[in-house]
């Protein structure tokens, strides 16, 4: 199943979009949105990831198994994060680690 040859202008347009979104990430970070800064930044990064995956990595033109592998990877990552985070944040004994050698400010 040979891959479709994507027109060069699609790649150029994709690259420009990604660079624009990079500038947007930077610009948004200069505005104080409180805790929403991180949410917006991660959302933009997720959009960029999707664009890279679909076009540069050809997921838009590939059917079947690779797509399933991507979903499986995302699912296991979600499990890893969700279960670790819920565990840690619902216990009270989690202490900050004793750091290494620096002696300032203690």
């Amino acid at each position, binding site marked *: *199943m*040979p*891959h479709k*040859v*994507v027109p*060069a202008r699609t*790649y*150029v347009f*994709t*690259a420009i979009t*990604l*660079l624009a979104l*990079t*500038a947007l*990430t*930077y610009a948004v*970070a200069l*505005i*104080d*949105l409180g805790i929403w*800064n*991180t949410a917006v*930044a*991660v959302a*933009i*990064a997720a959009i*960029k*990831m999707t664009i*890279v*995956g679909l*076009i*540069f*990595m050809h997921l838009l033109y*590939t059917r079947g*198994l*690779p797509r399933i*592998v*991507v979903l*499986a*990877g*995302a699912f*296991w*990552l979600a499990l*890893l*994060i969700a279960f*670790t*985070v819920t565990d*840690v*944040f619902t216990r009270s004994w*989690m202490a*900050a*680690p004793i*750091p*290494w*050698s*620096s*002696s*300032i*400010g*203690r």
Partner: protein
Amino acid sequence: MPTPDIGNAESAAMEPAARHAGLQEQFEDAGQQRSAAELGMWIFLATELLFFGGLFTLYIIYREIHFEEFKQGSHLLEAGFGLAMTALLVTSSFTMAMAVRSAQIGKRKPLVAFLLVTMLFGGAFLGLKFTEYHVKWTEQLVPGLRFSPGGERLQGARWQGVEMFMCFYFFMTGLHALHMIVGIGLLGVLAILSCKGRYTEGHFTPIENAGLYWHFVDIVWLFLFPLLYLVRGA
């Protein structure tokens, strides 16, 4: 009715030869080999996702614990550096995609050129990265080895949390930089082989898979950039 001659049948099966030199014997045809290699690459990338995912999970936990200190830590990094590196890496992903395209349409010179340009952008990224590491070393911001931040920027900071942030900075960008070094080496080998015309005769799976790897490493950085450089609060 002649009894089927097993020997002949076998050689007949092998015959419709025109078997490409790059086609391994366990595969029926080039398409099957290609699909298998592509699937294998995606599975490898899924394991890489979990490899980096562990660090991102820890980042979430420690950022919650040391929320203010991570902000102060982020102020120690130059956001402009991060922005420039992101731009370089995104552009390198574009040239990598163009390299794969050149292989698809069987154009040797553009393929080699795009591979070299991709390596150049990747190298520039690493150059900036190591310059930044050097700056952090001179500013005494390397946890465990040389960590004694001074100056007014961090007045009143709780150092433990800031040190933790710098630890994440070095481990996450370090693992990423390691992947970049591997990627550049890989592209170097492919560029040499491409020069000899290896991938412009219909068999270019290694180019495609190197491209997938390169784009994946790019994606990791797309998340590292905001989470390390831009969590400073306005």
